[in-house]
């Protein structure tokens, strides 16, 4: 039997900035809230790794809102993202800054009191630690308000009544309890799926659980073929092998502020020590498609690999400024990098998913009672967007809860899911594979075949390889112990199924888009085709079948320049 059924108005799945902020907003609206998180509140999320914050238009030149919007909408996915949500988040950014400062967040200032900005579009509490500082403050507010919380609790399935979402199943792996949660509305804020790739900026728990749970329940997903990549993470000193779960530090090339408000721009070098992307060096963060393509062209010429052969030089940057402004400084010291002499070898890695659960401007999903916020949604997902989506989803989810009766859970669904969860708690065959080994395999497939530059052959191979994992490897998945106490491998077995399903879905959708568009690049279709492909690929699960819809992109505010 189910050990526990818990009831709440609004159930929030995910303990990052979006989920935590949603919880704070929902209780402000009088809703009873329960937040469950796969790890520890504010520690197992992507937010803790976020480095910068969107600079509100107020602190940049007056025309900046439209410019900034255009820059984001064009850079991230090439006009496929939801412009209303993006614009609203930008407008709200200063409100969030104010509110966070009220709670004690310190936005980094120059000695004269002016905010430190990087380029024109981002601002930081502390360069590199902005997300950590924000989530720490929100988590502390959350705890202070004594909002009900279940940590070490992984949601495994959404519970439905017809199309409506009325709760979720979860496993608390610290105790082994399987829990049925009944809620009037549910907000998924479980983050994207960065852990699908070997090298990623995501924490290890970000296995796409929220996306695939929503998909299985029938929600639409959009743009999931679009994934943002980071050009300059996973740094090491040349000559040293890349650490496997390698250290991610946005070393740069990344701009370093100076007291006189000018910026140090780092220099990118190829394996021969020549600059190869001069015009993009001053672009922030190493997120740009153009930067990725410069790196890719090095790889294609055989001068670099996916994990080596690209260098950043900070030799011209003063150590004092690095120490003063960048949180990476202690780490550089730790690994013995002398930036005045050493080059930093950098590697590309998967960053955030541009796509995700399709949401309206109210952050409703396509299923009644289900809302989504943060990295799990479609659209760019920076900290400001996490705050905006968290707040908006919470307002509407709380309102929805007020007008909705709590519906009884379906025993059948509960029993099925309980059985499914328990089916992984087995130790046979002894010579089988651990979930962690299989997760590694899935990530390797995605890394090898679904890297930045894709083609039909590789994608089909990826599908085939994933299918083999499902067919040959998964049946041999076993745990070392069937204990219920902090058996994280048990959760990882559930991760395997989530990752497999999501990876396959991403590959299948990617095969459909026959063009190249910013972060979605195909060798076999290298051109952007606005005539045929200024579209969102929307996918949903209809009774076990993948249903695809191509919907024209809504160009509400900005549109592509005429070529």
């Amino acid at each position, binding site marked *: 039997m189910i050990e526990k059924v818990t009831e709440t108005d609004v159930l929030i799945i995910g303990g990052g900035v979006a989920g935590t902020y949603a919880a704070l907003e929902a209780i402000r609206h009088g809703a009873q809230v329960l937040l469950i998180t796969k790890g*520890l509140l504010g520690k197992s999320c992507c937010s803790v790794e976020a480095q910068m914050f969107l600079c509100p238009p107020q602190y940049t030149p007056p025309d900046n809102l439209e410019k900034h919007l255009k820059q984001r909408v064009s850079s991230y996915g090439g006009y496929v993202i939801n412009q209303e949500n993006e614009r609203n988040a930008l407008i709200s950014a*200063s409100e969030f800054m104010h509110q966070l400062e009220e709670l004690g967040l*310190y936005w980094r200032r120059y*000695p004269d009191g002016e905010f430190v900005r990087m380029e024109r579009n981002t601002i930081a509490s502390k360069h590199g630690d902005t997300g950590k500082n924000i989530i720490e403050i929100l988590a502390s507010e959350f705890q202070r308000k004594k909002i009900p919380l279940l940590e070490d609790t992984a949601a495994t399935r959404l519970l439905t009544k017809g199309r409506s979402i009325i709760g979720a199943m979860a496993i608390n792996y610290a105790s082994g309890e399987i829990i049925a949660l009944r809620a009037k509305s549910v907000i998924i804020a479980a983050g994207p799926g960065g852990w699908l790739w070997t090298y990623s900026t995501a924490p290890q728990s970000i296995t796409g659980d929220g996306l695939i749970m929503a998909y299985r329940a029938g929600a639409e997903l959009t743009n999931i073929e679009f994934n943002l990549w980071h050009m300059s993470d996973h740094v090491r000193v040349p000559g040293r092998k890349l650490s496997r779960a390698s*250290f991610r530090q946005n070393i740069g090339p990344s701009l370093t502020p100076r007291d006189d408000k000018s910026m140090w721009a780092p220099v990118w070098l190829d394996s021969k020590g020549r600059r190869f992307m001069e015009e993009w060096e001053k672009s922030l963060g190493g997120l740009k498609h153009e930067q990725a393509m410069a790196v890719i062209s090095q790889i294609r010429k055989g001068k670099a690999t996916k994990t080596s052969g690209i260098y950043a030089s900070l030799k011209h940057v003063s150590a004092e400024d690095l120490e003063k402004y960048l949180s990476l400084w202690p780490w550089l010291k730790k690994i013995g990098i002398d930036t005045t002499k050493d080059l930093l070898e950098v590697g590309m890695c998967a960053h955030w998913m541009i796509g995700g659960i399709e949401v309206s401007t109210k952050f409703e999903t396509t299923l009644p009672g289900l809302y989504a916020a943060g990295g799990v949604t479609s659209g760019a997902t920076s900290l400001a967007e996490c705050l905006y989506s968290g707040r908006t989803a919470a307002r509407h989810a709380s309102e929805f809860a007020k007008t909705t009766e709590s519906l009884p859970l379906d025993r059948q669904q509960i029993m099925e899911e309980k059985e499914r969860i328990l089916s992984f708690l087995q130790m046979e065959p002894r010579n089988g594979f651990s979930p*962690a080994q299989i997760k590694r395999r899935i990530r390797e497939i995605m890394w090898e075949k679904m890297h930045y530059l894709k083609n039909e052959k590789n994608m089909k191979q990826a599908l085939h390889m994933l299918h083999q994992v499902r067919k040959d490897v998964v049946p041999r998945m076993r*745990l070392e112990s069937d204990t219920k*106490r902090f058996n994280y491998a048990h959760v990882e077995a559930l991760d395997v199924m989530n990752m497999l399903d999501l990876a396959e879905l991403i590959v299948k959708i990617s095969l459909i888009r026959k063009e190249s568009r910013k972060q979605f690049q195909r060798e076999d279709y290298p051109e952007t085709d606005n005539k045929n492909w200024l579209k969102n690929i929307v996918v949903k699960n209809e009774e076990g079948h993948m249903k695809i819809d191509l919907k024209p992109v809504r160009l509400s505010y900005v549109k592509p320049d005429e070529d």
Partner: protein
Amino acid sequence: MSNTDWVKVKIFRYDPSRDKKPRYEAYKVPFFDGMRVLDTILYVTDYLGKDISFRWSCGSGRCGTCAVMVNGEPKLACWEPAEREMIIEPLPYFPILKDLVIDRSSYDRSVLEMKPFLQRAVPLDKFPEDLKHDDNIAIIDKLGECIHCLSCLSACPILRKAPLWVGPSGLVALAKYSTHPGDKGDKPRIAYSEGEIYNCTVCNRCKEVCPKEIAVPDIAIERVRALCVERGCISPTIGNALEGVYKYGNPWGLSPTKRSDWAEDLKVKYVSEDESTELLYFVGCAASYDPRAQKTARAMVYSLNTLGIDFSILGNEEICCGNEVSLLGEKGLFEELTVKNLAIFDRYDVKNIVTTSPHCFNAFSNRYKRKLQVKHYTQYFGDLIDSRKLNFLSEIRKVVTYQDPCFLGRHNNLYDDPRKIINSIPGVRFVELSESRERSVCCEGGGGRMWYDVQGESLSEARVREAVDLGANKLAVACPFCLLTLDDAVKTTNNEGIIQVVDILELLAQALTKHHYSSET
């Protein structure tokens, strides 16, 4: 592959719901340059397929969940390099959930009691707030780097006797907002009551293990204690000590006219305004007043005289150096003491200073506004050994071990001179305590703890027991506080006659004389 290409790791395995006791499993993992502790563990899970329960998340030093004990030292797994041989265990003091995972919920609850948030009296109606990146904000910013990885708690010696104490990072969380211009909360009171801020001995062990290099004693403990003093949130015994310094120049409140009584029968020169003072022996309060510690002062005088070194003392004009006053947060009094001491040094044209106490040494070398030429006596005699000016005349056939004083070791990085002196004494067999040098365990005499007790078995008692187990006859110290606390511990553990706590000065005085040295001589 050759032997050097492997990491040999033993990992703690324990399922409290099933296993009677923990076990260690050994694995061999291929080594690569730049490998971290985390990479080692992940190889065992992701490649060898072992389901080791281990908490980690970001892998980049931000979430603070992956700290484990590596060879007895707390390490953030994603931050620290792998060693060729490692024993990896969960952090101590917390219930073990499974393998390397601890239940940290009690910590989270106690941190919340510290009110680790900004307590504004009025809402912030104006944005941006009028803040500049000044020294105060820079410190708040630095305190904000804490990731609550619990490394400091795991290393803090006080947790050994008070495992429920919120510890260094808990006080960092409190300190973070305590000097924020907008904070109107009751943080000093909380620090004093729930935070038990006077538990801290300022031994610097937390700073030593902090992956973010947060100088907890300097920027958290001392700053908050200063607020505690302002608001009167101090224990009565500490209040008395401060009052003693204020009124009589020493924390025991003893008469200044008796300060140099210990030297009455010795051949010792007092400073004079008529000539400059080449070498001032700054005795310090403990060695001036405490009968046991006075013996070290006498041994100092004996040694200097034996070597024919010209030196003077301040006699009854000497006053407290202010080190503990400053650590206790009484900044005004400390300021006053520095002014007075500097005036005294000027009056007697003091060129060089040698101290008995590492605490005085620390104050003069790090905390005074003016750079003073000061040495701790172990440095002074260490230099004489280097220049071959020490001539030992008798053997000390004893097994000797040594307690590193925090203010010599971790605070000032002086580990070798004391050992050099001990090892150069003929006949001595020197043995190290298992936790020594950077990992030395505080005697609980520092940071004002001479005047404030924490319930439980004293750390000094554990130190004495270990020294006895090592077979040492003498436990050598280089600090009067260590001398007094460890001496007490010898008595309370009934080890009198088995082991003797001696100051290195006393060993030195004995070794420098052909006859039996007695402090009465």
